[in-house]
């Protein structure tokens, strides 16, 4: 089997973002998706600190400390971009104007519960930021994560053991092994990577998987 690299995962997610979409890319792995969006599509990136039309990293010498993204990295503004205050930034999310958000995750449950903000470990300082708002705040919520933990345990679980970010909020999971839809009838495999059968994927995954009608096995 050929596991996808982070960039390959990002490119795979990017393929599913259509022309005209308003998209928020979460902190961590999802920020890579921005590098892979097809150049022939106009896609508007949202940042919850008050930007629509986030552009690429500025050239050296052109950084502006008042033009940063939600990860507090220096960014640029594309032509047509706009600034707005924080309550508007979250209003456009919560009200379903935002089409997609792509989030990282510690765990996703079979029902689409998401855990991605807090390990709950003793002594850990909790910090939530916009994670809970994003989890419930887009028409479609994509998760992008490794399929397995470093110890080889499935990050797709029957019930999340980490504190939840949102309940039944995830629509689709992109991992380094597969693309899986969360449906009312359970998890449905859309794709596996080259050399990975659905049976083998099932062996690695903590919950029962179904085959999507359009399943593409690598």
């Amino acid at each position, binding site marked *: 089997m050929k596991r996808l690299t982070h960039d390959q995962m990002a490119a795979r997610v990017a393929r599913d973002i259509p022309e005209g979409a308003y998209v928020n890319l979460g902190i961590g792995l999802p920020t890579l998706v921005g590098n892979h969006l097809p150049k022939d599509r106009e896609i508007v990136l949202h940042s919850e600190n008050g930007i629509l039309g986030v552009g690429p990293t500025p050239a050296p010498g052109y950084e502006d400390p008042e*033009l940063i993204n939600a990860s507090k990295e220096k960014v640029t503004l594309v032509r047509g971009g706009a600034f707005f205050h924080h309550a508007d930034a*979250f209003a456009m999310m919560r009200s379903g104007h935002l089409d997609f958000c792509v989030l990282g995750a510690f765990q996703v449950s079979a029902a689409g519960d998401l855990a991605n903000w807090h390990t709950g470990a003793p002594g850990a300082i909790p910090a939530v930021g916009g994670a809970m708002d994003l989890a419930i705040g887009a028409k479609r919520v994509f998760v992008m994560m490794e399929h397995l933990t470093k110890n080889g345990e499935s990050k797709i679980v029957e019930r999340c053991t980490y504190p939840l970010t949102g309940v039944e909020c995830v629509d689709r999971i992109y991992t380094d092994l597969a693309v899986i839809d969360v449906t009312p009838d359970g998890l449905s495999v859309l794709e596996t990577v080259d050399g990975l059968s659905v049976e083998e994927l099932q062996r690695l995954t903590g919950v029962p998987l179904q085959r999507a009608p359009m399943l593409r096995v690598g």
Partner: protein
Amino acid sequence: MINKIVSTLVAAVADIRDGATIMIGGFGTAGMPSELVDALIEQGGRDLVIVSNNAGNGEIGLAALLKAKRVRKIICSFPRQSDSYVFDALYRAGEIELELVPQGNLAERIRAAGAGIGAFYTPTGYGTMLAEGKETREIDGRHYVLEYPIHADFALIKAERGDRWGNLVYRKAARNFGPIMATAAKCTVAQVNEVVELGGLDPEAIVTPGIFVHRVVAAPGARIKAVA
């Protein structure tokens, strides 16, 4: 004549009392009114409740206020950052109270205060530990959590330009919490990079109308300093 211009940063925060609730604008250092916060440190107010998205960076601005042990409680969404070691140490030592609020709920609770809303139902946080003990309601098949507004005695914010009526415009993503915090405090103090004549701001482009602002103080060069 209405004149909200205050001549010094120190005078702009002189009457903040011990125990006051103070909103401090900014997302990280963008939009952080660091000069006003420095004036507040000098002013000496203590037992403060701070409402701000983060809990300070390095040892400047809000982090310096925390380090001076002037803050009893902080209401914020993302205290833990790579350079939040001042907050981290106080929190671990049990010397500061933290109310952690999802960022959009923080913004909407501030907005609600400024808009005269008594409380509101929001889907954010439903079913999570940050909604434990809160009222919930199902509306049209979706679950919501009841959240209350956050009012403040003072809001300290940073804007790009202001006039003597308190009209403000902001710069880029430094706008963030400024416009909503301005509406939610009994006394809003704006530090601006430039004070302009009345009429010097395009009325079509004013972001915060002066009715929400009580004091405007020039802190020119704040932006240039941030770049350096």
